[in-house]
């Protein structure tokens, strides 16, 4: 579709080709609409469009919307205009529907969990569906492509949503500096007072007031779905879905050997469709766990935008890490410095005689604001009081 035709007779003209280029970018996750195509054409008219360098920088200024886009633009430009569109199809499959997931080529093979699942050794759980080699999957790998719909039911999510709402409310605080009109406020709202005083001949009889509104805390949840955590996937995924549904500012990420953003997928109004999308995104569930590496990637990447003083970072993991514990230590220190509060929910903590001896957990402890047990939805609900104290 977005292939550049090479026959002059079939050439639909430059405008159509630019439109094709925008479609190509859209297929690769850029957020562009018809208006951008118009702007792109206007931009090309404002430069020497025949000069590839100028056209490239001009289209870049129009089409990119973030640093990430800007980094990918040059390759996509070359793929479309320089390569007969050959790279288009493959790139489109890898990027389609994933929105902003974080895919990393490296570290997947090297980070295979040595600690638990023996089937980790053979895994290469890559995201792309293309390529013949992938189809020859072992039984072990087939198991990993677990369908989340078997694990979580819509009823679970409904119950979790109620819990998540309560937890979200518990986390609210009052630190806004802005004032808003309110019936019982401490400050006087001069604007409304003067306006009202016109009715009384300029004597401000009725004082309008303003107060500082509550400012909700944003929750960023990171859920570990490696092999050792699979037993808890049901309550945790339901909880994540509930969190996302309860508040539109919440973010959710999954990690096993990779870090995947599942916020958009979970926000799907249809619960089953949402789980389906997460299943597709989170290919490799139940594999090895690279907690340190993933947290570090999160702290260096998405956290720069998503984590600030009004954020609670919630990590759901058992702390069994195949990365060296220094990774967790550094990543959490980095997150802390961004001002966020850190909550670590560990399913194992509820067991009698549990001590955080796993090297990863021990490294994490000094950074945490709250370290609590959570195995079931009821446990999560019981956290309300603790979270309110944060």
């Amino acid at each position: 579709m977005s292939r550049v035709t090479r026959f002059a007779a079939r050439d639909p003209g430059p405008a159509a080709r630019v439109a094709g280029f925008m479609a190509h970018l859209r297929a690769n996750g850029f957020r562009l609409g018809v208006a951008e195509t118009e702007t792109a054409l206007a931009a090309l008219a404002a430069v020497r469009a025949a000069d590839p360098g100028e056209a490239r920088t001009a289209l870049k200024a129009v089409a990119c919307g973030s640093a990430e886009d800007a980094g990918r633009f040059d390759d996509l430009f070359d793929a479309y205009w320089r390569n007969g569109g050959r790279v288009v199809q493959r790139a489109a499959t890898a990027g389609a529907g994933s929105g902003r997931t974080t895919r990393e080529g490296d570290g997947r093979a090297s980070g295979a969990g040595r600690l638990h699942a023996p089937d980790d050794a053979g895994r290469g759980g890559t995201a792309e569906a293309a390529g013949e080699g992938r189809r020859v999957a072992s039984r072990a790998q087939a198991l990993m492509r677990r369908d989340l719909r078997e694990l979580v039911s819509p009823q679970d999510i409904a119950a979790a949503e109620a819990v998540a709402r309560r937890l979200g409310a518990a986390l609210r605080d009052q630190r806004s500096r802005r004032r808003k009109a309110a019936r019982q406020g401490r400050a006087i709202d001069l604007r409304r007072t003067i306006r009202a005083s016109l009715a009384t001949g300029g004597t401000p009889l009725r004082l309008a007031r303003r107060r500082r509104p509550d400012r909700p805390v944003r929750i960023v949840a990171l859920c570990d779905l490696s092999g050792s955590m699979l037993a808890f996937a049901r309550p945790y995924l339901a909880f994540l879905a509930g969190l996302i549904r309860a508040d539109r500012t919440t973010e959710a990420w999954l990690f096993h050997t990779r870090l995947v953003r599942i916020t958009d997928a979970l926000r799907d109004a249809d619960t089953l469709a949402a789980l389906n999308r997460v299943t597709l995104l989170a290919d490799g569930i139940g594999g090895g766990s690279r907690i340190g590496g993933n947290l570090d990637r999160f702290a260096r990447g998405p956290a720069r935008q998503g984590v600030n003083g009004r954020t609670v970072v919630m990590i759901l993991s058992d702390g069994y890490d195949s990365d060296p514990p220094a990774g967790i230590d550094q990543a959490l220190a980095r997150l802390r410095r961004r001002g966020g509060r850190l909550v670590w929910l560990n399913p194992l903590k509820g067991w009698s005689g549990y001590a955080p001896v796993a090297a990863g957990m021990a490294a994490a402890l000094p950074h945490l604001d709250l370290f609590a047990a959570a195995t079931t939805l009821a446990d999560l609900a019981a956290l309300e009081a603790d979270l309110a104290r944060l």
Partner: protein
Amino acid sequence: MTDWQTLTADLARHGYIAAPDLAMALHLSLALGRPLLIEGAAGVGKTEVARTLAAVKATELIRLQCYEGLDAAQAIYEWNYQRQLLAIRAAAEAGETGRAVEERLFSEAFLLERPLLRAIRRPVAPVLLIDEIDRADEEFEAYLLEILSDFQITVPELGTLAAVTRPMVILTSNGTRELSDALRRRCLYAHVDYPDRAAELAILAARCPGLPEQLAGQIVGFVQALRREDLDKKPGVAELLDFAAALSGLGINDLSGDPAALQAALATLLKTEADRAAVPAEVAARLAGKAA
């Protein structure tokens, strides 16, 4: 020479060395009348672009520094309450009442223009710099969208104030918060990175003309090596210029010659305790030796 190359040259004449991406984005933003969103790490010269553009166009720079809690009253307009109160009292003394008083009270004479309103009411189009938009709240972004798309401001008591001229709008963001897609779509985009060696040398030559060539090379090499270290706050171009100024103030002609003075001048580059600890004298000396 095409338009954007002329613009690049103009910027360079005013001491700003712009990368091709940025110059093109700036040119398009002027040509298409779209706002330009500039992102990049702190200290790569985002704010300076606007200042230089204002100098190039010989126009006024109106700057709106965003912060958490910024609201319409501080960014767009506010009524002058004290004067309104006085006018009400005066009207009452004079025995005036009714619509005439009200109309006078809510006329432009009592309106305090804040940066956004001021920017669209100037007879000559100014450069409007909305600095660190990511620090403002999301509600404020919505106000901004209305102004950026229509270039008009609605004051309930007065009606809609249309733009006299369209300002050249530049927004900067450090990425402390994800901006809304609506805002991103409305803007052209440029990502500014740390400049490469040649560009940085050119910047240094433009801003600190008296610097010996060898020292300039050393300074740039040193700062670029420093950026490759694992630091919390990487030194930007502004820090580089401070560093160069500090060195020439200390009368140093060779970086590797005087470790003590180098260590003292590092205060201009490393701004956190952890970063100072990460670059002790030996490391600094090693980096300086390599840069030489």
